[in-house]
């Protein structure tokens, strides 16, 4: 088979790329949509869970434990489990993907709030900030570098996991990969893999850049 592959089935055949450009573009757009939707939903739920854990400290272990449990479920199995309820729809793809982001997002958010120096918290209270002001104006900004770090990991791993959703007919670039594997035709597989890697790197860089802009104080070193 490898001889065949070298002879008639190169890693990439550019005519195919040109001919099937519409299909590639469509897969690309769907991949981005699934990623953004999943991370957005995951962030929303993670924010709520983190808020509960921060407000009611004893809830921290159950919440992170639950997020950790979700993370252990194999993605293929989870997609399969949801098909009877939601069919081969986008919902079936997004729900598990969002669930997988919870662990990293919640633990990083909590770590960020824990890293706020207690002296800073005391000072905020002592100067008469209300608890809400303290959280929004002091603790949240200071936790931001941790939250952003979590978000970067969540996005990169979601870009990878979206390809798995191809088994339920969603999956964006994953469909190209699956198609290539089925037909033992390497070009769509290569395109799907390379594009998803590039996408992961670009999104990661984008969030990194936005994060730096949002936290200017982290880039200045002590000068004296």
């Amino acid at each position: 088979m490898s001889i065949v592959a070298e002879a008639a089935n190169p890693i990439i055949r550019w005519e195919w790329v040109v001919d099937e450009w519409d299909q590639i573009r469509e897969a690309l757009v769907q991949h981005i949509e699934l990623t953004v939707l999943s991370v957005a939903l995951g962030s929303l739920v993670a924010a709520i869970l983190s808020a509960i854990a921060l407000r009611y400290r004893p809830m921290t272990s159950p919440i992170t434990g639950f997020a950790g449990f979700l993370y252990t479920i194999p993605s293929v199995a989870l997609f399969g489990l949801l098909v009877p309820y939601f069919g081969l729809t986008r919902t079936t793809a997004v729900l598990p993907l969002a669930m997988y982001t919870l662990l990293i997002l919640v633990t990083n958010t909590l770590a960020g709030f824990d890293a706020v120096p207690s002296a800073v918290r005391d000072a905020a209270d002592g100067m008469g900030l209300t608890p809400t002001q303290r959280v929004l104006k002091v603790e949240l900004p200071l936790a931001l570098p941790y939250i952003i770090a979590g978000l970067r990991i969540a996005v990169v791993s979601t870009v990878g996991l979206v390809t798995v959703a191809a088994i339920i007919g969603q999956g964006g670039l994953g469909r190209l990969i699956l198609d290539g594997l089925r037909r033992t035709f390497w070009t769509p597989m290569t395109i799907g893999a390379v594009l998803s890697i590039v996408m992961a790197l670009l999104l990661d860089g984008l969030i990194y850049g936005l994060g730096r802009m949002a936290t200017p104080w982290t880039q200045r070193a002590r000068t004296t």
Partner: protein
Amino acid sequence: MINRLIEPSSGRLEINGTDILDQPVTELRRNIGYVIQQVGLFPHRTVGQNIATVPRTLGWDKQRTAERVEELGRLVGLEAAMFDRYPDELSGGQQQRVGVARALAADPPVLLMDEPFGAVDPIVRNRLQDELLALQQQVHKTIVLVTHDIDEALRLADRIALLNVGGILEQYATPDDLLRDPANEFVEQFVGQDRGMKRLTLKTVAELPYTQGPVVDATATTTEALAVAEAHGVDWVGVVRDERFLGWADRTDLTNGAVMADLPVARPSARVTPDSSLRNAMELIMTGRTSVAVIDDGGRFGGVVTLDTIRSSLGSELGS
């Protein structure tokens, strides 16, 4: 407890006659400047924004806040160039200055300082203490300062409340009273064996009665000088011309009836100013060749300090 970070379990705490429990806790805190040991500046806010925290919370407009920040910067000795920096870019001493400025921002009547100088090195601490004293001369706040350093307390305080473990009040007195008349053994131990010496640190030469001592004018004769030396029971006489102290003349030279100006004089080795502490004066006397120190009052001869005058300044208050 004054700003209700800890709630009082019993008793009453009043600020300007208002029970602190009778107002919303955030409002109470905005009217109390708060300085803590670790400073607790907001790392994500610039120096200027840090100082502006309470004014902004109180809803001051930008113009008024900016003017106030600038004013406070001058007051605590921060250059305007620092306002745009982040706290992590400042040294420990500078950070603490920002902390003090932030606490004073809304001009609160009361300032709470919780071991404000505990985290800086001794040299910086000394300077910050000086600055605080100078600052207090200008702002006249009621400052409640918590410290474990008895010397810091003695140096800064008008009144000291000495608390034992468990918050038991052992004594509440002025620094001088605390040293002179410790209420019990705990206080005595806490202020240390050298409390007499510490009292000398608190007092300055200016508080002594200025005595001329065995000193004659340069135009006096040696016979007159000899009489002065004998009257004081000393072996030397100081010589003064035009209100300036020239030096000491030895008694053995006072024999030939000449004018004092013609005699050789030894330049004074111990010289203090009215601002010098009595401890400083005493050290100079102990280590100098003469048993007196000369007071140099802005270039003029102000008098002499002897161990006797220092001792009597402590002793005279024992009965009062």
